[in-house]
């Protein structure tokens, strides 16, 4: 009882911000601390595989190695970049189109959304598993029908074909995340004020003109948000590719996160692995910053960042 009164009294005296301390402490311990530890480790030669490498300082050696001697890293980087661009653009176009159709022509949106949402609510590992089964060469259901339609050779499988595997992974990601884009864009469309569109109708604009001159500009902050969210998540992609292909065949689907995983937990080269991990983090950070600046600058603060209420 007296404890509560003390706390209550404290709050009343304007030290409420102290309530933030536990959260910040936790995050510092779990995230910020490890982050700096990672940065430190990236300058060392720590390895769990080689007993004599216990983390002695290496200066910039790891970074030099990354920049000059690791074509696999950069190959993976380029691959990941291509993956992100492919995935985000396809999902955006498809998702937006679906949202528009739903918004303008469909009555029972709730029901449809519930069904469409299933792919994105599944654990990404499970998604990987499901499609691994569907694309299995001998008895995969999708493989079978692809063969029937003539798109696939007898007895081959998409996931073991170095040329086809990446597009397949892209397609699976599109399957999983397009509903997310649809959901967000639909919410955006529904939140738009009705009047500017009616004003445009009265001004004589056709449906296409209204879309271009009123709807799209008003949706700009939300579009930026969706692209940012999907872009960053696509860059971090790990779970389902890990299960689907493990990065293979060869390195055909070895995204940055998978490569980093391999260095750290297969080769146990933790020093260099931290260097890779740090690079990945930097790239994501830069992407975020660039995007945030772009939206901030062009539109005023994005819809969500108004002070006082996200």
């Amino acid at each position, binding site marked *: 009882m007296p404890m509560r009164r003390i706390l209550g009294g404290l709050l009343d005296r304007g030290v409420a911000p102290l309530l933030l301390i536990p959260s910040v402490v936790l995050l510092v311990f779990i995230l910020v601390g490890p982050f700096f530890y990672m940065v430190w480790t990236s300058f060392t030669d720590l390895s769990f595989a080689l007993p004599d490498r216990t983390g002695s300082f290496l200066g910039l050696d790891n970074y030099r190695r990354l920049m000059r001697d690791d074509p696999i890293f950069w190959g993976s980087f380029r691959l990941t970049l291509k993956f992100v661009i492919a995935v985000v653009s396809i999902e955006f176009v498809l998702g937006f189109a679906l949202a528009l159709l739903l918004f303008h022509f469909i009555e029972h949106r709730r029901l*449809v959304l519930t069904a*469409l949402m299933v792919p994105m609510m599944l654990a990404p590992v499970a998604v990987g598993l499901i499609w691994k089964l569907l694309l299995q060469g001998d008895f995969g259901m999708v493989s079978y029908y692809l063969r029937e339609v003539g798109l696939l050779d007898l007895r081959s499988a998409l996931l073991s074909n170095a040329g086809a595997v990446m597009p397949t992974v892209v397609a699976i990601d599109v399957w999983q995340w397009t509903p997310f884009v649809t959901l*967000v864009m639909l919410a955006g469309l529904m939140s738009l004020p009705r009047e500017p569109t009616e004003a445009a109708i009265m001004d004589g604009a056709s449906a296409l003109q209204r879309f271009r001159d009123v709807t799209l500009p008003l949706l700009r902050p939300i579009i930026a948000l969706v692209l940012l969210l999907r872009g960053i998540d696509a860059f971090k992609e790990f779970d389902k590719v890990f299960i689907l292909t493990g990065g293979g065949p060869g390195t055909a689907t070895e995204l940055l996160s998978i490569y980093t995983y391999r260095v750290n937990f297969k080769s146990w080269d933790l020093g260099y692995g931290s260097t890779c991990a740090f690079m990945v983090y930097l790239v994501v950070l830069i992407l975020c910053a660039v995007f945030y600046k772009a939206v901030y600058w062009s539109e005023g603060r994005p819809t969500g960042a108004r002070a006082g209420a996200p």
Partner: protein
Amino acid sequence: MSRAWTAFAVAVILAGVLIALTPYVWILMTSFKTRLDALADTPVWLFTPTFEHYPDVFLEKNYLPLVWNSVLVATLSTALSLALGVPAAYVFARHEFPAKEDLFFFFLTTRMAPPISVVVPMFLLFTTFRITDTPLAVILAHSTFNLSLVVWMMRGFFAEIPREIDEAAMMDGHSRAGMFVRILVPLAAPGLAATAVLCFILSWNEFLYAFVLVAFEGRTLTVGIPGLITPHGTLWGQVAAVAVVATLPIILFSLLVQRHLVRGLTFGAVKG
């Protein structure tokens, strides 16, 4: 003209729904198919179901503890994030202090950290403190994204409650703390529930942290899935059963928060 568009829209949406649901329906079916049916050359759509895979994998192969671990980890990480995040959200919603928005931005960035970058040092750190291979490690790891989710979502929900209600409650005799506990939190209860469910879902579905930080004892369901896929051969019926148990509860749960989903997934930038 609009009729043709409507027909087109319905056709496209129907196709979309089919594409979205069929893969999941397939894995559901597979979990009830005999080995023969599951591995048949030609896909089998009508079959006599068998329930053998579920007890086989959960009892004989002892996968039941994994279910328990998933429940444990998801529940506790949600609880932890709520316990710390809800008061923090209240502070952001109702109080002013220097560098407030910068601190808020800090919370946002924690959610954006790529797990692969963070898990490496986390693994090293936890090994040092000897909490690797315990559920605690995963719970703490999951709070990196759940905590910021709670702070973001709940700030919005609290901000929607007019300040006048706080003031009225305090005029009625509550202290600030009492007002928070007895008035504000109950009013924000629907948002709180939605946030909690979302945290649970994110934690339950998570893979990388759980995979790296735990070797055997504290494995969650998601981590159990790769274990059943071996180069020597995969018991698809059993894997499917695990996948179903790993996903079905979440699908049902997500129906509960459907209305608030957009808000949670977009940092509250778009109202659900």
